[in-house]
């Protein structure tokens, strides 16, 4: 099997005056597919129900990831190192006896909440579609702003109209018809760059990834979700999802475009500035919703990649 990410650019990156000419551009087939979905995007019982449901799990994934990688003891900012170290030990809590461990865990949780409350993350959502994820992100108290970009005008119009219904989003959320490589990294950098359920729709995912990671601040995060290229994925998303259960609109997926978790991991391995911190498989159970699995190499998966500070 060849890797979806190893395809070398066959032509140099062209200028992006015209949106349809780039390697990261949207194909006409994909575009017309999403345009058709635009009007029912926000009907939680409609064709995008599965995406709405998946959003619940990925919001948990993101908050948990960000929370669990917070640095609780910032030695540079401590007034009294000895005292604060007792407050939150940096060692393995499992070694303590239960009562103490409990109270340490509680202290840690309180500290995490505190740190989170103080944050105002700047986020970029690439391939934001109708804005299911962008809106949720923008409502979080620890998010300062979200910019959603997509290449489908129709879908973006839906996103803008829907965001206008909720006053809380007014100052925090904006949308732009823009290709990711059009963003100048010397002007715009983000704490969180997300690509959810979009890499499987692009022709040159490596190019999209490459353009996306330029925009991540040191210490910032890339979050993505997509689908492994395996039999299970074909069976669940295309055979079952689109044809048997009809819970996903026909033509949503093209199996050959799926990307394996391993491929993304290897791609990031070549870049010392980035570390894959979390990777989790998930599966949709019709009567239940989305659920994490033990195996990120099968079916759908979420990844969290951190730009490590040097």
């Amino acid at each position, binding site marked *: 099997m060849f890797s979806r990410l190893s395809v070398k650019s066959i032509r140099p990156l062209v200028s992006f005056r015209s949106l349809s000419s780039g390697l990261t551009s949207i194909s006409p087939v994909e575009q017309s597919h999403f345009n058709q979905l635009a009007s029912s995007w926000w009907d*939680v*019982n409609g064709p995008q129900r599965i995406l*709405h*449901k998946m*959003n*619940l799990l990925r*919001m*948990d994934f993101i*908050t948990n990831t960000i929370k669990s990688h917070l640095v609780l003891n910032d030695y540079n900012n401590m007034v009294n190192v000895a005292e604060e170290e007792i407050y939150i030990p940096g060692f393995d809590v499992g070694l303590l006896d239960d009562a103490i461990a409990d109270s340490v865990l509680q202290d840690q949780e309180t500290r995490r*909440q505190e740190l989170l409350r103080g944050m105002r993350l700047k986020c970029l959502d690439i391939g934001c579609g109708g804005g299911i994820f962008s*809106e*949720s*992100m*923008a*409502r*979080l*108290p620890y*998010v300062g702003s979200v910019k959603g970009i997509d290449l489908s005008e129709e879908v973006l119009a839906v996103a803008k109209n829907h965001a*206008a*219904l*909720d*006053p809380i989003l007014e100052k925090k959320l904006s949308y732009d018809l823009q290709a990711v490589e059009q963003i100048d990294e010397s002007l715009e950098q983000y704490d969180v760059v997300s690509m959810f359920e979009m890499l499987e729709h692009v022709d040159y995912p490596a190019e999209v990834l490459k353009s996306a990671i330029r925009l991540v601040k040191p210490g910032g995060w890339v979050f993505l979700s997509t689908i492994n290229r395996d039999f299970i994925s074909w069976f669940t998303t295309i055979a079952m999802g689109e044809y048997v259960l009809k819970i996903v609109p026909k033509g949503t997926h093209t199996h050959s475009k799926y990307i394996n978790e391993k491929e993304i991991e290897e791609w990031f391995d070549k870049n010392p500035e980035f570390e894959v911190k979390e990777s989790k498989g998930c599966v949709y159970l019709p009567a239940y919703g989305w659920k994490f699995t033990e195996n990120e190499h099968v079916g759908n998966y979420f990844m969290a990649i951190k730009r490590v500070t040097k």
Partner: protein
Amino acid sequence: MFRAIRHLSTVSAMRLADVVIIGGGPAGLTLASALKASRSTSQLKVELIEGGKLLEGLREFGNSPPEDITNRVVSLTPATVNYLEKIGVWDFIRYERIEEYDNILAYDGVTNSRIEFEHVGIATMCENLNLQSALLAKIEDLGESGCPLDIHDSTKVVGIDSAGNGWPVVELDNGERIQTRLLVGADGFNSPVRKFAGIESRGWSYNRWGIVATLNFKVDSFRQITGWQRFLPSGPIALLPLPNDMASLVWSTTPELANVLLKLSEEKFAAMINAAMKLDPEEMKYLYKLAEEDDNSLVDSISWRLSLFNNKLQPEQHELYPLEIESLVPGSRAKFPLKMSHADTYVGPRIALVGDAAHTTHPLAGQGLNMGQADVQSLVNCIETATERGLDIGSTLALEPYFSERWPINNAMLGVVDKLHKLFSTDFTPVVMARSFGLDVLNTVPFVKDFLVDRMSSK
């Protein structure tokens, strides 16, 4: 010109909220304090609207409660008490006015078969006012520590409309309008919110009234602290223990008998309670007739019959019946229509129903308020999770889990209570035999009984 000005002024009188709760009953107040006590939801802008006069009375109760126990008393399950502890409301309860008991003795008036439920802390008797004033105290305490909440009492909702963005707009009788992300109907069984949302509620009236009163026991011998319930053909009568040798009465009966009983003097009414806990249904029929004629021999006739009854009891059999009632707390009698109803759904876009707005039940199992507390707990969970996930808390996606968690449980509970009511309010012989069999079987098969006890006292 005039229109334009009017239009402008109404626009400026509109304010925004995240959650508007209609109804300051137990369900509405619990929801308000739970939302403010939760780390995830304490920053939401919440307003509570109550049509009746509420705050002054509750504060007064909190500061200097009356000596006598007030007449609306509910029995709280351990699950309810646990939840109130968890959200920090229980600290504000006046403990000297509640009574915890471990034992419920239910017996059948027609066949005299019995069932005894025993379970540590099976229930806690608590005045509605004690609970509501603790809830208000907690809300005010949270307000002082930076999580304020607006409560408007003596303010009726006169209309509910939809704004351009689909959010409900609540119109108050003082002319103010609130546009809200989520509108919660905690507005009792006539729920205006349910009607606005076009949610159908199905059910029926039991053609029964519930008479409540607060009573003083005549303390002439010892009884364990016990809840007593006797099933009469016209409906169950229950005496539930309160502090200081008092008891709370819930007597469900037909509208005709309720009228008769409510017209009696308090002395005669107390005598009728004593009769109803012990005497044979045939004798009761005769006594109801005397009562209807307001016959002056009623009290004497009852005393005579009771002394005959008591004399026939073996010494150890006395404990199978409650102590007799000495008197009523003056003016504590009241009546309520009993109905069973269940809304088709509890949620809609930007709408949720909790408590009696979603379901009403026969009080024989003392579940009504407790079901509402469990609703609130589940809804708060949903709102917390949705907030943490950045969802719009008014979307059905956020609210659906509340409905799917609570509706089936409430429906099962309504069904069981409804069937109990039907089973015990007849004196048709085959049914009576079956039910006598039923009760005795329950009493001897620990598994079935434990299941019932579990249900009543579920943690």
